[in-house]
């Protein structure tokens, strides 16, 4: 839920710039996949703080529970078993909104102010303005937003924007028992990630690295991955995510161009009438018909 006490940097379906006098610090959440034990304390903390409850589901034979993000489950652990270097590796990724610098959801949203980006980088949905069209789902490169079947509003992780506004770290960060989720300024998180990556490399994960994909301008949720060269291993984390060219085409230059064309056609018609006059029936033809009738 959007919080007005944070500075807004971008607003959906708004063509004028947001207030820019004040700049707040860019923040980030860092998820160290190598330190995650899959306890789901973050999921619990998320539901508790945000006061949303996913319905109790069924065990489908894997640890993922719930099995997907929903309007009530804004973060889920995704468990993947892979064999690397003849060893079984259990990769556990905490999935949820990545809070892109260039958010595809915000770009696609047709409702003014339904999606906003704060100057600290957090992307938030303002359900009061949401019209339920699902364009955010279409625009998101990470398949994150979910439309509620109950109220037709879109929901996703808020990065606890309400907590951030009062200088508190997100609930999931607070709950993590292993320190796999860290929170701070984006710069600090990059530094911290650097240390973690150096450590992993020392331990033989020479492809360890930071996931902060440049295709979406970087994200405000970043991962430390042991196999940063293959993010797809982690339950299909996109390799080089960016806003789809189709979405850019749909929401980019074509909008003003098409609007211009429509305006031109309407005005063109008006001026055609003004310049050429109406296309009336010729007097001779009227007279021919009158003559026929008289005879």
């Amino acid at each position, binding site marked *: 839920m959007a919080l007005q006490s944070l500075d807004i940097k971008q607003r959906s379906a708004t063509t004028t710039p947001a207030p820019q006098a004040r700049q707040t610090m860019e923040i980030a959440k860092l998820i160290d996949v190598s330190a995650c034990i899959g306890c789901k304390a973050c999921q619990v903390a998320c539901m508790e703080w945000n006061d949303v409850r996913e319905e109790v589901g069924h065990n489908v034979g894997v640890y993922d529970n719930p099995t997907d993000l929903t309007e009530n489950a804004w973060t889920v652990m995704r468990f993947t078993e892979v064999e690397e270097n003849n060893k079984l590796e259990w990769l556990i990724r905490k999935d949820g909104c990545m809070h892109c610098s260039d958010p595809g959801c915000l770009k696609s949203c047709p409702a003014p102010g339904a999606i906003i980006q704060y100057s600290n980088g957090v992307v938030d949905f303002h359900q009061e303005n949401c019209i339920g069209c699902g364009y955010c789902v279409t625009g998101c490169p990470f398949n994150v937003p979910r439309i509620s079947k109950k109220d037709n509003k879109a929901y996703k992780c808020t990065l606890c924007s309400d907590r951030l506004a009062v200088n508190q770290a997100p609930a999931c960060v607070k709950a993590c028992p292993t320190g796999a989720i860290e929170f701070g300024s984006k710069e600090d998180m990059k530094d911290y990630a650097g240390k973690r990556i150096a450590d992993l490399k020392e331990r033989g994960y020479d492809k360890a690295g930071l996931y902060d994909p440049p295709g979406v301008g970087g994200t405000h949720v970043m991962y430390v991955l042991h196999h940063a060269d293959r993010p797809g291993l982690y339950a299909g984390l996109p390799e080089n995510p960016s806003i789809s060219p189709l979405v850019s085409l749909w929401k980019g230059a074509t909008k003003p161009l098409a609007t211009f064309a429509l305006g031109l056609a309407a005005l063109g018609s008006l001026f055609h009438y003004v310049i050429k006059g109406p296309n009336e029936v010729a007097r001779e*033809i009227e007279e021919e018909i009158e003559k026929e009738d008289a005879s």
Partner: protein
Amino acid sequence: MIRDPKDLPRYNAAERANHWVTGICFILLALSGLAFFHPAFYPLVQLFGGGAWARIIHPYLGVILGIAFVVMFFRFWQLNLINDADREWLTRVGEMIEGNDHNMPEQGKYNAGQKMVFWSMAVCVSALVISGLLMWRAYFNFPVGIVRLAAVVHAAAATIMILVAIVHVYAAIWTKGTIRAMWYGTVTRAWAKQHHRAWYRQMTGK
């Protein structure tokens, strides 16, 4: 105005009703669709009771338009087949736009311009209905790649359809004595003789 009993019937009541069901749906669809298309048009959602209502209503209107258009298509498609006179008409459309239509080839019930409107509408409506269904999240959940393509097709086809509709409406306003054909069904013989001489001959035997 006393209607001349010798006026020529151009559209019967069912054809007129069919046309206006389509037309009303089109206007409402264009207004609500434009609201989602560009922020400048977003205030149009107020005509529908707000953004959420506009989003709810838009696809249902689309379904009604789709059905009404299909019925209309089968009423008129044979009259809209393109022939040699149409091809000549199209190459000389400049004269028509100039308002100098005296030497244009004789036209049947529809001139080549009207036929172009008919076929462009048919293509646009097909594209809009199919892409619209793919984007209808209240009922469907297609793979995101398909929905993205559908969104582009929907926006492009809608733009073309509104452009064609502007031409369609303007042509009716510009050509005096035309709109009554769609209000109460008849046109004067003089109108028919001037604008659709082949049809005039067919109707009057002259």
